[in-house]
C-alpha cells in the first residue's frame, strides 16, 4: 500500500484541530503536489521538505507524490506541516514503518539542512492531541517544555528530521520531556508599589480596582506617575492559577510571542495609541490575537486614551462585556479569550496642565470639552473607577513616608477576590441587573447616604450601578459582610468628573 497517514494538528484561533496528512507515492512522472486548502506557507513546504529530506541523507522518491491535508474544507496555514509531510513521504517510500505513526501527532517546521524549527501554539497542540486521544506528540525541541505542561500526552522534542525518523522508526529511544518544575513564585521583576512615592489616593483606587476587577481611568498632568502606577498593577492582582497560566500561554504561543515556556506573570500590555483596530482587538487576513487577548488575565493599559482611534476603542466593547473577542470571516469564526482589567490614562485637557499648580493651563473651556468628548461614551460606561493623579511638588515628594509594598496589597486583594468568588462566582465588576441589587443590598445608614448622594450629585442610572459595585468591593476589602455607609462614601470618590458626564 502506498498511501500513508501521519497525524498532525492545525492551530485554529487558540485551539488546535486534528489534521490528517495523507501521502500517496505512486508510479508516474516525478512530481510533488499538496492539496487540501493549503495557504502559501504550506505550498512552500514542497521545497523545504524535498531539500530537507535529501540533506538528511534520505532519498526523495522519484515518483508522483500527492499530499492531502484532511479535512479538506479547513484552511491550513503556516509551516508546521513540514515535518509530518516529510515523515509521511519517508514512511510511504519505506524509510520507516507506517504503523509507528498511529496515535502519534507530528508538528514542526523544517529548515533546509534538515533541522526542526519552533512552531506557534505548541501548548494548544498538546491540548488538542490529548483531546484527540493521541498518545505521543512529536514536535520541535524548543517547544517541548511548553507542550509538556498539559500532561496526558507524551511529548518528545526533536532537533532534526533524522532524529524524528529514527525515533518514530524505533531506532532511537527517548524519554518524554518533563514539564519544567514550577518555581511557584512569580517575582515581579522589581516593579513594586513601594517604588512610587506619594499618590496614596491613586494607589488606594488601584487596590480597589484590583480587588473587584474594575476598569480604571486615571487622569492627570504629564509626569504625575500614571504610567509608573499602571505598570505596577499586575503585581497587586492575585497570582495566576495553573488553569489561567495555560490559557495565557496558549494565546501568547498562538500569536508567536511565546518563548517555549509557561507564562507565569500576569501580562501587562501597553499598545501605542496609533494601534489599528485589528492590532488591538485581533484579526487580520491571517487572524492573530490582538493586544486585548495578549492581555488576557492581565492588564491592558491605554496611555493617552483620547488619542486612540474611535473605531479601535469601539472594538473593545465586546471583550469588556463578554471576556472574549469573536472574529468572523467568510470561511470561519474564531474566538480569542480576552478577560482583562482595562487601565486608561488621560490628560485632563489638551495641554495637560488643567489643575496643575506648577504650570498654568492654556486651554479654553471649549477645547477641554472637545478633548474629553473624544472618548466614546459606551467605553466610559464600562469603566467603574475614575481617579485624578495630580503632579506632586518636590516638597510633597520629600515629606512622603515610605510606601507599602505590592505584596501586602496583593494579600488584601486576594482575600477580597476570594470572598467574591465564594459569594457570586465572579468579580464584582461583572455584577449587573438583579444580581447587583441582591449582592449590593444596602441597609439603614448606607441606603440613606446613597439616596442623598444620588440626589445631590445627580448620578445617572449607570453611575448609580457603578457606585454600588465599587462600594461592594470596598466592603469586601474591609472584610465586611454588608455594605456600610463609609464604603458607599469611599466609592463616591471614584465617580467620574462632570466633564465626562455622570
Amino acid at each position, binding site marked *: 500500500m502506498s498511501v500513508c497517514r501521519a497525524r498532525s494538528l492545525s492551530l485554529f484561533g487558540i485551539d488546535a484541530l486534528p489534521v490528517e496528512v495523507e501521502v500517496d507515492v505512486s508510479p508516474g512522472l516525478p512530481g510533488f503536489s499538496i492539496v487540501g486548502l493549503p495557504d502559501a506557507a504550506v505550498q512552500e513546504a514542497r521545497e523545504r521538505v524535498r531539500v530537507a529530506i535529501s540533506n538528511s541523507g534520505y532519498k526523495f522518491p522519484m515518483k508522483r507524490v500527492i499530499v492531502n491535508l484532511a479535512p479538506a474544507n479547513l484552511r491550513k496555514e503556516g509551516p508546521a506541516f513540514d515535518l509530518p509531510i516529510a515523515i509521511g513521504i519517508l514512511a510511504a517510500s519505506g524509510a520507516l514503518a507506517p504503523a509507528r505513526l498511529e496515535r502519534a501527532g507530528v508538528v514542526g517546521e523544517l529548515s533546509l539542512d534538515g533541522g526542526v524549527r519552533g512552531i506557534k501554539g505548541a501548548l494548544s497542540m498538546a491540548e488538542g492531541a490529548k483531546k484527540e486521544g493521541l498518545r505521543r506528540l512529536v514536535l520541535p525541541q524548543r517547544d517541548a517544555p511548553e507542550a509538556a505542561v498539559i500532561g496526558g500526552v507524551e511529548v518528545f522534542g526533536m532537533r532534526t528530521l533524522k532524529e524524528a525518523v529514527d525515533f518514530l522508526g524505533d531506532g532511537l529511544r527517548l524519554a518524554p520531556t518533563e514539564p519544567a518544575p514550577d518555581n511557584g513564585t512569580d517575582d515581579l521583576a522589581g516593579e513594586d508599589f513601594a517604588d512610587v512615592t506619594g499618590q496614596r489616593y491613586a494607589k488606594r483606587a488601584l487596590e480597589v480596582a484590583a480587588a473587584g476587577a474594575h476598569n480604571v481611568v486615571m487622569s492627570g498632568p504629564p509626569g504625575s506617575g500614571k504610567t509608573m502606577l499602571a505598570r505596577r498593577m499586575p503585581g497587586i492582582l492575585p497570582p495566576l492559577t495553573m488553569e489561567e497560566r495555560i490559557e495565557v500561554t496558549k494565546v501568547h504561543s498562538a500569536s508567536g510571542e511565546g518563548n517555549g515556556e509557561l507564562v507565569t506573570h500576569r501580562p501587562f500590555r501597553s499598545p501605542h495609541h496609533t494601534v489599528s483596530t485589528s492590532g488591538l482587538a485581533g484579526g487580520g487576513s491571517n487572524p492573530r490575537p490582538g493586544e486585548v487577548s495578549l492581555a488576557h488575565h492581565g492588564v491592558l493599559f491605554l496611555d493617552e486614551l483620547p488619542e486612540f482611534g474611535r473605531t479601535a476603542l469601539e472594538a473593545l466593547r465586546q471583550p469588556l462585556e463578554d471576556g472574549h473577542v469573536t472574529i468572523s470571516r467568510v470561511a470561519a469564526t474564531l474566538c480569542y479569550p480576552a478577560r482583562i482589567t482595562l487601565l486608561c490614562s488621560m490628560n485632563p485637557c489638551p495641554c495637560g496642565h488643567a*489643575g496643575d499648580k506648577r504650570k498654568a493651563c492654556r486651554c479654553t*473651556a*471649549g477645547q477641554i470639552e472637545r478633548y474629553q468628548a473624544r472618548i466614546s461614551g459606551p467605553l466610559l460606561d464600562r469603566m467603574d473607577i475614575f481617579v485624578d493623579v*495630580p503632579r506632586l511638588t518636590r516638597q510633597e515628594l520629600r515629606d512622603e513616608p515610605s510606601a507599602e509594598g505590592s505584596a501586602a496589597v496583593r494579600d488584601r486583594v486576594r482575600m477580597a477576590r476570594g470572598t467574591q468568588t465564594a459569594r457570586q462566582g465572579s468579580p464584582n465588576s461583572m455584577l449587573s441587573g438583579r444580581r447587583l441589587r441582591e449582592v449590593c443590598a444596602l441597609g439603614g445608614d448606607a441606603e440613606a447616604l446613597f439616596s442623598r448622594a444620588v440626589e445631590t450629585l445627580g448620578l445617572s442610572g449607570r453611575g448609580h450601578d457603578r457606585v454600588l459595585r465599587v462600594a461592594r468591593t470596598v466592603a469586601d476589602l474591609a472584610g465586611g459582610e454588608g455594605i456600610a455607609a463609609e464604603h458607599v462614601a469611599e466609592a463616591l470618590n471614584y465617580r467620574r468628573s462632570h466633564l465626562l458626564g455622570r
Partner: protein
Amino acid sequence: MEDSERRDERAKHLFLSHLQAMVGSSLVARLGNLSPEAVFETPYSELVGNTGNFRKAERLFDGLQRGFDAGAIEDQLAARGISAITLADEDYPGLLRNAPDPPPALYLDGAIPDAPSVALVGSRKASSTGIETANKLGCALAERGVCVVSGLALGVDAAAHQGAVDAGGLTVGVLGCGIDVVYPRSNRALFDSVRRHGALVSEYFLGEAPLAWRFPARNRIIAGLASSVVVVEAPEHSGALITASHGLEAGRDVWAVPGPPGVRECRGSNGLLADGAGVLWDVPEFLEAVAPRGGTGLEPPDPSLPAGLPDTEAAALSGVGLEPRGVDAVARRSGIVMSELLPALALLELKGFVHRDAVGAYVRRAVP
C-alpha cells in the same frame, strides 16, 4: 427737535456706529458733535485733518460714506424685530449716556429693564468657588429686583447670568459681536434665557464677528449700564479688570470678592481690594449697599464650624483649604489614613462643606 431733524441725527449715529465697528472709538468720538450733513458729506481728509497715514481708516470711511443707507438699515432691523437706540433717542440709557465714550447706537434684542443694575464680571476660567460665588450673587441680586449686567462669556459671566435667570429676575448680556451671533457657542441656551429675562445688547450691527478687540471695548458698556461693578474673581491682566477701570472712570462703585492670598485666579481681584475697592465679604451687607431695603431682617450666618461634625470629618475638613487641593495633599495635612479620609470627604461634600472640582481637587465652600 423736529421729526426730520431727529431722523437725520439718528441716521448720523447709525453711521457712526457702523464706522466704530470698523475703526474703534477714538475717531468716532471726534465726529459725535458734528451735524449730520457734515458727517455724510465732508471728505475724510477735511474732517480728520492731517492725522498721519491712516490709509485704511480713510478707505473704510470713504466706502461707508458712499454706500450708507440709513433707511435700509432701519428696515432690516424692523424685519428682524431688533430695536436700535441711538444717542439721539430719549430712551438711551441715562447711566450709559453720561459715561465716558458712550456708543453712538445700541442694538437690542429684548428691552433694557427699568431697574437698578449691577455688573457682575470675572474670569472666563474661574475656579469652582468663583463660579459658585457668581451664581449665588446673580441669584441674590435678582431676588432683590436688581438687574444683573454681564458679558455672556464663559465662567463667571455665564454663572452670574444663570443665577439671575434661575431666580426668575432681570439680566442684560452685553456682547462683543452682533446680537444675532452666538459666541461662545456653548452658551446658546443661556443666550435664549437672557433674552427672555431682559435683553441682549451690543454696539455692533447684526452679523458683526466677535473680533478680539471688541471684547475690551464692550466692557465699557457693561460698566456704563450698571451703577456698581463687582469683580468676582480675576487673575492679573483679566478683562474683568478693564471693566472695573471703566467703572471707576464712569464713577461707579467697584467691589471685589476677596480670595485667598497668592492664588493665581484671585490676584487681580485681590489687587483691586488693595487699591481700595469695596470688600464684598458679606452678601447681605453688599445687597443693602447696592439696593437698600432698610434692614435685612436676616440673621448673619454663623461662620464657626458647626458642632456635631464627627471627629474624622472635622479633621478632614481642617485639611481642606480655600484653594483647591488634591486628595493626597488633604491626607498629608489632616493626617488621616486614606481609607478613612475618602469616606469623610464624600460625606463633607454631601453635607455641603466642601466642593470637588473637575480635576478632583477639594475646596471649602461657604457654610450652607
